[in-house]
């Protein structure tokens, strides 16, 4: 420890700062009987207010987009609030599709009060059943048969009279009416026999003329009478039809009269019943078929006629219930808008109003529909259909193929149903911003954003509420009871998950995972409850399941495949700290950063950027440190240095500016020639004024370097230098805290880059005196002297080069 300056000692982070402990005695997971459950609302007041506001505003467009990451219990919160709001509303009306007798391809939508839809459907089914019996029975009545016979008799008499009079007239005039298979021939008679041309010639001329005239006149008369036969038969059919309608009307009026009385307060239903009555009477002959004939598929099926009076109940609500709250987990087009099904019949696809199916929009009509936006956007046509429905305030059920003009089979155009709905979209923030930016209609339809907090303040009150939240979730999942110390440990882990010792993560899925896994390990040891050890076991096993790559990196370093020194000193070389993020798991590990310098024209080259392995933020960090270098040293002379910085053995991309402090130190070491300690690792970003700034992933970074040092043997010299501003984020693993407590590992916190360089070199950085000069033998003096020296040489080199040119 002799090489550490006093100032460095002052920068050591006390053990108490490394991990903010949650005292078990402060934990109380029991909730009072009157206390509301905190599970879904804790720390989300802003989002809750926004959702409630959207649900209360009746104007169009006040739909809500709930922004929050996966696993933040967005659905539970939305469901709870939507159900609260739904309780203040009555159940919406029922909706049915009924046959449009005038245009069957355009089924009509019929609205009924909540609960009446199912009743009406049942009434119509009963009516059909009664009609199926009543109408054939009416036709089987003896009176009906007698009336039909009478009508047919009258017609027959009329026809016989027609022929009889013609035959008699022809006979009187000496003309025979001969039948052929297809008609009649009028021929002259002589002595009751048909005569031929020779016999005709023998007749007196007068008689011949008379015969010709008779045949001519009788032919015309015959033609006229033949023409009148279809009319006579048609008249018979019409009379029978009128009789049928009269019989049907008599049977139906009684049955429908009861229904009309029942629904007299619903004009739309009465209108429909009137239409049904007219249609039944018009189709009375179709109801007379009582038995299935042979080859029934070739004849008209009376059941199809009865089916046209069925009621397709597409939305059914319970009278006295609350408004619906629907969550559609699979928001495909049919599931959202509805669909028109078809049935195969004789090789053709047929449909009718009974095959219209409602989607979630209609099911939630009058209430709330909750959808996951990433699923909505992932299903073809759904987003556009959703917007269309909201803009038009009606649901038009049609198939996507018809919309696209690809329909290849007969389909329907059901009457649109008026829509009054609140849509709640749930999605991640980037999707909200994407839609806000690129979809101009989005803002008109989703005027309210409810932004869920990722974490909450770790205040005393919130810790208590959080403990109760943990208690609720333990209870909901039937887990073993957690003792207070275990709950305290879980709360500490929630701070660690939030990457902030002063906040608690609201990511509920990861909380549930920890609780369930701890419960598992407790059950594995046949315990009756979950203790701190079970929490630790759960954490250890989770890391063990996921740290394959981390172990590979450490192994590569141990075997000197990846070159990282953890002892000694080296000029222009420093251990930086980087984070590898694997989604559900991330880990920190050291990375060697080197810098080289020489006289030049003032460029600091970021090799990562040059080879396009560095991201924009990393490049920005390097540019800032170059600017800091220029600003801090030899401001009166041109910066005459060429420097280059690189992440050694880094073959993937590098992003972020968290290595800029380390890069700056490597650069100063290279310029000054003062070696840097290799038993330390550095993280932090630097601004142009030399201020060290906070970075992300601080816990994993520290633990990553600790793991390597532990593998190689901790001797008390190892440690990390972090930004002071990151102290509040420290929630280090217990093992690291113990190592620091036992002085096997150190954590330094710096606010200025001078502090960092002093820790890394054991030398004073040096501050400018009244003459604006750094003290001799300080790092800053060495750097400035070197840069002035470079500038002079560069000036001489330039003058020489210019003189040469002049000479030449």
């Amino acid at each position: 420890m002799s090489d550490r300056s006093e100032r460095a000692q002052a920068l050591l982070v006390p053990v108490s700062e490394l991990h903010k402990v949650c005292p078990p005695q402060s934990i109380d997971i029991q909730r009072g009987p009157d206390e509301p459950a905190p599970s879904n609302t804790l720390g989300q007041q802003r989002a809750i207010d926004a959702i409630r506001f959207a649900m209360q505003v009746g104007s169009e467009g006040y739909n809500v987009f709930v922004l929050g990451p996966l696993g933040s219990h967005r659905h539970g919160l939305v469901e709870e609030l939507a159900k609260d709001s739904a309780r203040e509303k009555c159940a919406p009306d029922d909706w049915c599709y009924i046959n449009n007798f005038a245009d069957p391809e355009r089924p009509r939508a019929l609205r009924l009060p909540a609960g009446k839809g199912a009743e009406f459907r049942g009434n119509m089914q009963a009516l059909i059943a009664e009609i199926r019996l009543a109408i054939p029975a009416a036709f089987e009545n003896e009176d009906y048969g007698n009336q039909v016979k009478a009508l047919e008799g009258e017609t027959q008499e009329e026809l016989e009279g027609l022929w009889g009079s013609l035959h008699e007239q022809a006979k009187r005039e000496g003309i025979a009416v001969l039948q052929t298979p297809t008609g009649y021939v009028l021929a002259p008679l002589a002595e009751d026999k048909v005569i031929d041309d020779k016999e005709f010639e023998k007749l007196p001329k007068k008689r011949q003329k008379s015969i010709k005239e008779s045949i001519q006149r009788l032919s015309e008369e015959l033609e006229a009478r033949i023409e009148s036969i279809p009319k006579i038969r048609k008249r018979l059919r019409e009379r029978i039809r009128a009789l049928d309608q009269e019989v049907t009307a008599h049977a139906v009026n009684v049955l429908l009269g009861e229904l009309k009385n029942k629904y007299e307060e619903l004009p739309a239903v009465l209108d429909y019943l009137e239409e049904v009555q007219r249609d039944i009477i018009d189709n009375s002959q179709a109801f007379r078929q009582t038995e299935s004939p042979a080859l029934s598929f070739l004849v008209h099926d009376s059941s199809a006629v009865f089916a046209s009076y069925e009621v397709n109940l597409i939305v059914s609500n319970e009278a006295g219930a609350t408004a619906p709250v629907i969550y559609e987990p699979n928001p495909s087009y049919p599931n959202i808008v509805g669909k028109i099904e078809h049935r195969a019949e004789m090789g053709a696809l047929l449909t009718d109003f009974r095959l219209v199916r409602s989607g979630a929009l209609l099911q939630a009509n009058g209430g709330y529909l909750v959808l996951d936006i990433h699923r909505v956007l992932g299903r073809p046509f759904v987003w556009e259909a959703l917007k269309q429905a909201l803009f038009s305030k009606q649901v038009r059920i049609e198939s996507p193929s018809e919309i696209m003009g690809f329909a290849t089979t007969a389909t329907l155009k059901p009457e649109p149903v008026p829509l009054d709905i609140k849509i709640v979209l749930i999605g991640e923030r980037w999707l909200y911003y994407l839609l806000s930016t690129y979809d101009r209609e989005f803002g008109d339809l989703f005027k309210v954003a409810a932004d869920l907090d990722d974490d909450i303040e770790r205040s005393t009150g919130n810790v208590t509420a959080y403990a109760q939240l943990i208690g609720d979730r333990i209870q909901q999942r039937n887990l073993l009871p957690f003792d207070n110390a275990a709950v305290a440990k879980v709360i500490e882990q929630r701070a660690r998950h939030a990457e902030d010792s002063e906040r608690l993560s609201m990511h509920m899925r990861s909380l549930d995972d920890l609780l369930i896994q701890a419960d598992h390990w407790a059950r594995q040891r046949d315990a009756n409850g979950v203790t701190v050890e079970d929490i630790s076991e759960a954490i250890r096993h989770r890391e063990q399941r996921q740290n394959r790559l981390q172990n590979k990196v450490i192994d590569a370093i141990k075997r000197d495949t990846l070159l990282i020194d953890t002892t000694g000193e080296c000029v222009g070389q420093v251990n930086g700290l980087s984070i590898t993020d694997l989604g559900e798991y991330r880990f920190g590990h050291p990375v060697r950063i080197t810098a080289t310098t020489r006289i030049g024209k003032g460029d600091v080259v970021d090799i990562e950027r040059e080879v396009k392995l560095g991201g924009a933020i990393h490049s920005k960090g390097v540019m800032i440190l170059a600017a800091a270098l220029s600003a801090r040293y030899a401001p009166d002379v041109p910066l005459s240095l060429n420097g280059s910085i690189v992440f050694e053995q880094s073959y993937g991309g590098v992003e972020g500016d968290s290595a800029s402090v380390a890069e700056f130190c490597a650069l100063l070491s290279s310029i000054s020639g003062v070696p840097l300690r290799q038993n330390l690792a550095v993280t932090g970003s630097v601004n142009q004024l030399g201020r060290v700034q906070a970075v992300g992933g601080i816990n994993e970074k520290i633990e990553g370097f600790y793991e390597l040092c532990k593998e190689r043997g901790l001797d008390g010299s190892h440690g990390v230098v972090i930004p002071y501003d990151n102290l509040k984020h420290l929630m280090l693993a217990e093992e690291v805290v113990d190592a620091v407590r036992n002085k096997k590992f150190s954590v330094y916190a710096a606010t200025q880059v001078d502090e960092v360089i002093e820790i890394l070199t054991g030398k004073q950085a040096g501050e400018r005196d009244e003459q604006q000069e750094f003290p001799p033998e300080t790092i800053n003096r060495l750097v400035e002297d070197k840069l002035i020296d470079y500038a002079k040489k560069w000036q001489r080199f330039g003058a020489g080069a210019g003189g040469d040119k002049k000479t030449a």
Partner: protein
Amino acid sequence: MTRKQPEVRRVLIAVTEANSVPDLLHEVTEHLAEETAELVLVFLNDDRWRKAASLPFTREVFRISGVSTDFTSTRAEQVHQEVIDEILGRLRQFATDAKTTLAFETIPEQEAVRLHDLLTSDADVLVAPSSFRERPIYKEITRLKCRLRFVEPSEAARRS
């Protein structure tokens, strides 16, 4: 004491172009109980169509449409053949169903005397429409030794 009727040897159906065969078949069925009985169809051709067609001013008025057209000799022959074909078709189907043989002959009405060759005893039956009573052939029929059965036209036949 009643005299027992002899078994049926031959059933002869006599029709003209104006008769309905289905009406006669019911009567024929009653007499075809004997498996050995023979069925004979005689079509009495009275030549009325040919005679009518020989006149230049006769016209055929069609039953369905009421339209009329010249009734020519060709058309008369065609009608004659159509009627025979239709009657024969029905009788052949009937004979097949009744598992008996069918003989067919066309006789001009003025040659009705030839019926004596076909119907020689009271073991034979002549089935004819009742309208034959008004035809010249009736005198010849009454002189036959066979049994006679005259059939009234049905309601449907009258209607058509």
